[in-house]
Structure formats: C-alpha cells, structure tokens
C-alpha cells in the first residue's frame, strides 16, 4: 500500500546551503576564545582561564526566566558553590539590552559570578549560538566545551518546577571534577530570546 518515497539525493549537492546566522559550537570540541570587557572596564579572555573550568551564563536581569532562577536563589547558590571550588563563572549580557546597569541589577538579584561581561554587539553570543537567557555553556580546564543548553531540565517560568528539575551545571561540574563522563552533554536552552 505504501509507495516507496521518490528520492533523488544527488540534487542536494547542487543546492547552495543556507547557514543560520548564529554560529554553532560543538560539545567535546574546543570552545572558541573571546575577549570581553566586564562591567568595571576590565578585559577578560577565555584563554586566560585555561587550567580552570569555566561556566558561561547568558543573562538579562529583566527576563522572567532569569528572575525565576535568581530570586529563588537557584543560580546564586550554584555560582557560590562553583566559585568556592575554583570554577570561573562568567555571566554575559549580549545584544542591545546589555548595559553596565545589568551588572548592578544582577548583583542586586544575588549574582555571585566571577565577572559580568558585556557583549553589546552580540558577537560572542552569536559565536556561541547563545539564544536564550539563561543559556549555559560549561568549558573544562583544557578549553573543551562539555555542556551546552538549558540551566535545568524543565522549560518553564514557574518557580515551583525547580524542585522537580535536574540542574545541569552542578551535575556537569561534579562529573568534570571527578574526571568522570558528562552524561547530559546538551539540553534545550529555554528562556527569553537574546536581543541581538
């Protein structure tokens, strides 16, 4: 009954292929280097943290998803825990909503990251394919990307979902610290869109 699909795959080769505007980073590949200025005007590059595990967290303090994870204490708790263990946590504001005020707001919301970096032209956000706030990337001490995606496993703006959700950052950091395998290497990023 079912007819065989007619496929002429050779035709594909003749087509120019449209690439998405956002670049893509690949888990278990080297994380691309970047240099950004923090809210105090100090320059930071990813390369300077070689030898340390680095968490990149895309942020916009006015986004309700970000507020969920800050006002509940979820992200600040993870930041305090990670930085106490020598992990570098870089919170990044990308695009037209990124202002020095965001860093102050982030601190007021309980932010305890290593630095708040500003990426006003969105170049680093696009380099990493950061699309939501929050959006997480975890880079190991050798500069390899080991996790990318959502902050946790339940895409919602409801604080009540936090206790049921798997928190991917602590899980990834624990695996890297023990030299074990990272089980969940990517998950759906969820939140507000980054305003490029």
């Amino acid at each position, binding site marked *: 009954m079912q007819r065989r699909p007619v496929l002429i795959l050779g*035709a594909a080769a003749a087509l120019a292929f449209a690439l998405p505007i956002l670049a893509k980073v690949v888990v278990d590949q080297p994380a691309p280097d970047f240099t950004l200025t923090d809210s105090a005007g100090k320059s930071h590059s990813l390369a300077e943290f070689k030898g340390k595990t680095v968490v990149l967290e895309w942020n916009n303090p006015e986004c309700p998803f970000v507020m969920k994870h800050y006002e509940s204490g979820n992200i600040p708790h993870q930041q305090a825990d990670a930085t106490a263990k020598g992990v570098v946590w870089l919170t990044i504001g990308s695009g037209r909503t990124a202002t020095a005020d965001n860093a102050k707001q982030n601190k007021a919301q309980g932010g305890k990251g290593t630095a708040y970096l500003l990426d006003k032209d969105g170049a680093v956000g696009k380099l990493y394919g950061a699309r939501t706030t929050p959006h997480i990337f975890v880079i190991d001490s050798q500069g390899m990307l080991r996790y990318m995606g959502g902050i946790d496993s339940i895409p919602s703006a409801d604080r009540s979902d936090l206790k049921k959700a798997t928190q991917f950052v602590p899980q990834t950091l624990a695996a890297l610290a023990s030299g074990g395998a990272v089980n969940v290497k990517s998950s759906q990023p*969820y939140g507000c*869109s980054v305003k490029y």
Partner: protein
Amino acid sequence: MSSRFHSVGLLLVTLATNAEAASWANVPHGRVELVAERTTFAPGVRAWVGVEIAHDSGWHTYWINPGDSGLPTKLEWKLPQDFHAGEIAWPVPKRFDLGGLYNFGYDGNVLLPVAIDVPSSARAGSAIAIAVSAKWLICSHEICLPGKTSLALKVPIANGEGAANATAAPMFAKARAMLPTIAPWHGAAKLSADRVHIELSGKDLPNTAKLDIFSTAPNVIDNSPPKISSANNRIIAEVAKSEYLQSVPSKLTLILSETAREPPIAWKVEVPLGPVLKTEAGFFLNR
C-alpha cells in the same frame, strides 16, 4: 521596573451563564476567553471549544514548537466525569524573526481549538461546567511575561446539533482554515552531520515562492528558514540540523505553510527521518 511584573501570576476566573456569554479576561498585553463552537452540546458527540487569545499589538505567544526561545501555551482542563478534552489542534504558526533568532507562534487574534468528547451518558436538559487553566508566555521583541488564567464556561446539554455560537463562529472558521490538512504527498528526510535534506513529491504541491516549513518537534531541525526549491514535481528543503538534537526521531512531522495567503494555508506531512549513514553512527553515539 519591577512594576511591569506585578500582574504576573494574576488569576482571573470568568464564569459565564451560558455558552454564548463567554467573556474576556484581561491579562497583561492581551485578553483571553474560553468559547464553545455551539450553544449546546449533544450526548455522544465530539464538540469543539477554544481558547482565544487577543494579543496587544507587537506581542505574541507560542506554537507547540516555540523555536529558538519561548514556551508553548499549555491548557489544563477540568471537566465533568466521562468528558474528555483532546490536545490543542494547533493552527499554523507565524515565523517571527528576532534578529537571527526565530520564534513560531501567533499575534493578533488566534483561537486554539480543543475537541471535547461528550459522553453518551450526558443528560439532555442539564448543563455542564468546563474549566481550563491556561498558561502561556507572551513576548514582544523586547520583553517576555509568563501569564496564566482560569476560564470557565457552562454549556447546556441538548439533543441535536445545537445552534452555532454566532459570536465565536468567525474565530472557529479562521482557526479551521489555519489547521494544517493532511497532505497526500510522500517523501523522506535525510540527516547528515550538520543538516537535514527533505524531499516531498506528489500531486498539487504548493508553490515554493512563499512557502515556509516547520517541525512540530523542537530541537530536530534548526529554526532558521529552510532553503526551499522545487524541481520535477518535487519540493526540496535544506535546513541545518539543530545543535540540540539528541536522540534522532524515526520521523519528522512537518507543517508546510503558504504564507502568501492570509490566513496562511497549511499542510501536514509525516516523513521518515534517516537512516543515519553508517559513517556518521559514531558521531551520534557520542552525543
């Protein structure tokens, strides 16, 4: 600044006295209402209700696959015993371009239709209460707000088809026109390391000049617009693979939308995905 968020979590309950007298609940940046297609429901039939969202200008809510950000609207029903509500019959979404990021959803007025199965034991002469708790994310190009509300409706049970709800009829007609029809085409999607190649063939293929393609499942194909062409009675679509694709599904459910029309005309087609070439198997096992 935080005053913008005061109304988040606002719970509004609207109780109408009959199916026709549903009323709007004002919510941040829009209004929502629960409506029934007919003024009465007959025992043993599939009846239709819908949650209508009227977005303020510049604001949108999301489709089942929201795209690069956002969340799909969720409905939770409270119905009398033996009544059953189906899933949202999603009208074809619109593509929103947020500067290289893409969202799929709705602006303006949209009705999200849901089928209600009325048990044959429903007693004519009685009236039933239908309640729904709706949750959504409403966004402009600048900001997003989660919203929720509870809506309720009373519908009399009566034998016979029941009169059309005149107020709601235009929105049901528009939503029906926006429901993808099952396309008689066949085809396949082939996955390579970084892209998905889709081919469709069959009778009466749509014009590719103003055609868009969406996947109902998120994180399979990239959300940027596919490159679509046609040749020899085939439609060929090339799109990047989603970098968040984890386990490869055996099939893709695609929605094709002819966006030149308002509302757009849409088709639904299911195609097998894969097989993944042997040379790529290791790559996927490592994901």
